[in-house]
């Protein structure tokens, strides 16, 4: 079965469906979550509880004109939204959803994921650059400086996890954490790693919020100052693809956090590990993303960089050293 073409096709269809459904329905979740936090009821007109809303939004976006303004860099302008979407979908290939669900378990899947994550930053940069719009350029410059600043602590914490598991294969990392929550990297009991690893988890989570350009780190599309940032000139599905890419990046971030820190598909009490535990964990994390977005106001760009350079990087470095020391000593 492993080499059969059917396996590839089924995974392709499954991953595309997973990506599409998530990209569509996270928009709905986001709006419902925001509404609940602000004590409204959110979308409720289209379908039961507004569940047909993503469909309507999609149809509306597709029926609009794909406007290419004068003075934009035509090819790059058209390519950028697609480039935002491709890495997000490709990343799903290496995510181990469960013991036996996972398209490819590559040896360097962690590395691949972070390479792809940087690629989606390039999409933002290209989109902003090609638009030929002041707001868009400022926004993409901000996005790049922010992503660069947050990639460092993120990778440092990932190195810690990789040291603990001794592998860069996401599947191996998840397998290493099986057997109850005290084996998960965040609470890892053995050799006292739990002392610092929860800090690494928080650092990683903050970084993944920043990497996905989500509020309170949404400097790239600060509506109140930069109109819509790099998306200013995009209409129709160009905009739609950027939005879908953003939501998919959240899913990837949640999947990655789950796999690296929360034991992947492992049940907290070692009972019935399976893909449902993976899904429960990622949706709790995704809810936290939404929760955070509707709680905090946007930070300023220099505070954002301060947070990264002054707090997150020293903390993740210290954590790296302590973990290395613990591994060496025991």
């Amino acid at each position, binding site marked *: 079965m492993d080499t059969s073409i059917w396996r590839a096709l089924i995974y392709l269809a499954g991953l595309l469906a997973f990506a599409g459904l998530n990209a569509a329905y996270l928009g709905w979740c986001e709006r419902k979550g925001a509404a609940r936090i602000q004590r409204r009821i959110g979308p409720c007109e289209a379908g039961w509880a507004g569940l047909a809303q993503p469909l309507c939004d999609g149809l509306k976006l597709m029926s609009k004109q794909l406007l290419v303004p004068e003075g934009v860099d035509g090819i790059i302008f058209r390519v950028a939204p697609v480039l935002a979407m491709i890495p997000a979908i490709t990343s799903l290939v290496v995510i181990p959803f469960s013991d036996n669900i996972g398209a490819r378990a590559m040896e360097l899947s962690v590395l691949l994921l972070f390479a792809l994550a940087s690629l989606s930053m390039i999409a933002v940069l290209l989109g902003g650059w090609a638009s030929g719009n002041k707001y868009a350029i400022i926004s993409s410059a901000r996005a790049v400086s922010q992503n660069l600043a947050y990639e460092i602590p993120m990778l440092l914490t990932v190195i810690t996890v990789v040291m603990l598991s001794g592998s860069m294969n996401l599947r191996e990392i998840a397998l290493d954490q099986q057997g109850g929550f005290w084996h998960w990297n965040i609470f890892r009991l053995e050799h006292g790693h739990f002392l610092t690893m929860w800090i690494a988890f928080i650092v990683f989570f903050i970084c993944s919020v920043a990497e996905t350009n989500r509020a309170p780190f949404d400097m790239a599309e600060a509506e109140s100052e930069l109109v819509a940032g790099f998306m200013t000139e995009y209409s129709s599905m160009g905009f739609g693809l950027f939005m879908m890419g953003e939501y998919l990046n959240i899913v990837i971030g949640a999947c990655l956090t789950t796999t690296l820190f929360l034991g992947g598909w492992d049940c907290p009490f070692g009972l019935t590990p399976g893909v449902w535990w993976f899904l429960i964990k990622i949706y709790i994390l995704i809810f936290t993303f939404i*929760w*955070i977005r509707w*709680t905090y106001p946007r930070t300023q760009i220099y505070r954002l960089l301060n947070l990264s350079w002054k707090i997150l990087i020293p903390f993740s470095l210290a954590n790296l050293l302590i973990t290395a020391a613990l591994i060496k000593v025991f």
Partner: protein
Amino acid sequence: MNGYWSDIFTGSKSLVTGLLITAREFFKPVVTEQYPYEVPVMTPRFRGHIELIGNEETGQPNCVVCGMCQRACPSTCISLDGRKAEGGKGKVLTHYTLDFTKCSLCGLCVESCNFNALRFSKDYNLVSFDKNDFIMDMLKRLEEQNRCKQ
């Protein structure tokens, strides 16, 4: 390093406080009103356009056609007319029109009325494609209100 650790601690604490507040709000009941499905109850002092007050028993307008409201109106929205009452003293209202397109809801007409014949209505669903819909016949409105009462 001055204040570095305290910044981190107070900062984290305030972030957690914020999250807890939104989490609490998340489970509280909805405060918005779903307008077309839920109709708001207007407060007693809501100032809609004016309307005539009918007599409690007969339903006839309290108006004695003194014309004070007409004179008080700064935008000349009100026009009214009456005729001599049959067999009795005083006048009977024959028509009363409010040009709501010009009305600024100042309420001077209601204030000037000494016979308890005018009040603010509680109408707020005022939408139309036709300007003439806002030149309102108050007598007809009162008749309709009387019909609804019966």
